[in-house]
């Protein structure tokens, strides 16, 4: 035990006294924050219409019924003559007008007299500019208005008439659903990248540079070395994971242009939720460290180890994505025995506030068992001269 602590303390000293290593850990977090914020700002500017903008909507042969219902959709329609059509189209191209609607003459009457057996339905032409958010917005609103008008003519029944808020999901439910879809994948990827960044250097790096051989001729037991490495790497990658995850969570509202700010509210989780989450994250980290350590111990160079861990990274991402689909977390116990998948399902369940404690604990314990098997394999590898001294 004493030797394990000695190894852990060396690994920590190696990490925390190296400015470059800390920078390499914090840098991705800063990058994520900057890129997400930048993307959010950019997309916001590109796709959202100017809210103060008063739409310039022109209509030819405007029917009275449409003019009356326009204010309900926040639209003001200006009448125009048939001779102005070309000028208005030109104005739309030059962003000076947003929408042109051409109704047939006596639109209301034509609609009233229309019989599908006698001829084609009256036609409304609408011209807009799709690359201009204000024009696009005016087009959508006008389409909605006309659809409403159309369905009012043939009403057989109404849906939710006078019902103020038919969506019975609480804001907590909405937040939990959003988080439970995004977070498991995000966590898995962030944690795994942290592990990769550290383990390759700490195991293959030491092997490549011959410094691990110095430890192997000391009276240290191979098992102590394996456990010391795995534990210290797990803690360090946990810290690096926290930094990256924090940056991502802070940047998410920026990315979604403020839309997520009200809905993502982490107050909805209880202490039990957090404890279980921490347990599943820590055990999963141990498993990831064990997996990457084994590949790292097998590889001859850091470069080779990097290539060899890429398939693992893809696997972790795929498993992470599985949390986004399938309509919430699995409930059958058997799924929670599957390494990594069980972790993702547990995280997904905890985030969506819909889980069984037993299943999450099963995932924690089985993950811990798999990690221990990994530790055992790593010990064997440290013991094998073929692995440790292969060139």
């Amino acid at each position, binding site marked *: 035990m*004493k*030797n394990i602590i*000695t190894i852990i303390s*060396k690994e920590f*000293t*190696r990490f925390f006294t*190296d400015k470059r290593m800390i920078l390499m850990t914090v840098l991705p977090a800063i990058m994520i924050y900057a890129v997400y914020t930048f993307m959010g700002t950019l997309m916001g500017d590109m796709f959202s219409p100017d809210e103060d903008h008063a739409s310039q909507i022109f209509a030819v042969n405007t029917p009275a019924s449409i003019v009356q219902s326009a204010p309900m959709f926040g639209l003001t329609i200006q009448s125009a003559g048939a001779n102005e059509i070309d000028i208005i189209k030109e104005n739309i191209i030059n962003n000076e007008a947003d929408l042109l609607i051409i109704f047939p003459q006596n639109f209301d009457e034509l609609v009233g007299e229309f019989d599908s057996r006698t001829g084609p339905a009256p036609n409304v032409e609408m011209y807009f500019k799709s690359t201009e958010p204000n024009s696009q917005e005016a087009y959508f609103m006008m389409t909605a208005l006309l659809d409403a008008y159309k369905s009012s003519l043939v009403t057989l029944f109404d849906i939710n008439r006078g019902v103020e808020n038919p969506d019975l999901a609480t804001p907590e439910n909405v937040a939990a659903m959003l988080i439970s879809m995004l977070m498991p994948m995000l966590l898995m990827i962030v944690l795994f990248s942290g592990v990769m960044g550290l383990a390759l250097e700490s195991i293959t790096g*030491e092997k490549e*540079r*011959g*410094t691990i*051989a*110095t*430890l*192997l*001729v*000391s*009276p*240290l*037991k191979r098992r102590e070395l394996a456990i010391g490495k795995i534990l210290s790497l797990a803690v360090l990658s946990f810290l690096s994971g926290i930094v990256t995850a924090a940056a991502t969570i802070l940047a998410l509202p920026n990315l979604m242009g403020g839309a997520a700010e009200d809905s993502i509210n982490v107050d909805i989780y209880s202490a039990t939720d957090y404890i279980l989450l921490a347990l599943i994250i820590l055990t999963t980290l141990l498993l990831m460290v064990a997996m990457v350590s084994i590949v790292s111990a097998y590889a001859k160079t850091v470069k080779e180890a990097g290539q060899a861990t890429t398939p693992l990274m893809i696997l972790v991402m795929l498993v992470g994505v599985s949390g986004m689909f399938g309509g919430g977390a699995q409930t059958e116990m058997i799924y929670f025995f599957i390494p990594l998948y069980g972790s993702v399902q547990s995280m997904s369940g905890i985030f969506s506030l819909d889980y069984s404690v037993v299943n999450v604990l099963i995932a924690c314990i089985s993950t811990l068992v798999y990690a221990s098997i990994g530790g055992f394999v790593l010990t064997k590898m440290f013991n094998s*001269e073929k692995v440790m*001294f292969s060139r």
Partner: protein
Amino acid sequence: MSVILKAEGLTKTFRLSAKQQKLQNTKKKTITAADHISFEAHEGEIFGLLGPNGAGKTTVLRMLATLIKADSGDAIVDGSSIKTDPEGVRSKIGFLTSELKLEDFFTPNYLFDFFAKIHHLTPEVRDKRKKELFDKFGINKFAEVKVVNCSTGMKQRTSLVISVIHDPNIVIFDEPTNGLDVITAKVVTDFLMEQKALGKTVVLSTHIFSLVEKLCDRAGIIIDGKMIVCDSLANITAEKPLEDVFFDLYAEAKGGEEQ
């Protein structure tokens, strides 16, 4: 003098890759790096393993240091078997070879403390030992310089100090003066003599005749993985100088081969 290290029939084979087989023009799938090597080292003597490059000297020493496992045979090192008690062996020997490197990022001072902990030295013993060894090898000047910024000589001195941090009874050095300038090489040979004077046992490997003649009480000559001669230096060199003895043995060993 009593036997403190006894190697019996140490054998180690390595597998040859297909490429290597072609290169050596052989159909053999394995190469025997050490072929039933037996020898004894006595308390308070310097024992030398002499042989050309690739003869198997390093393989023998690595088996003794438990870095690699013997296919067959055993060695008892100060009462511990390399087969059944590798940790015990490692705690009793100081092993130095060029393939053992120190982490670039740390300073000699930090590494000394780290390995002192691995060897379970108390802080008092550690500090006493540190002062002693750092003074002797002039490490104080660069004790706080990261290994990456140390010269080859500085690194070698630090490695040496760390290998004997626990004051072992047996010191096993693989090619201890290789790649060192004359000053550092002398520091190392002086240290080995001093260890002998203190009653410790030194086992070293080398291909340098003068080093064996200067230091060793007894020596074993290894050619192609086989121990050809193992005797006191006085007996080996009774009739002719060591160099001549070696070349005669070498010609004899190689003459017996088909190619």
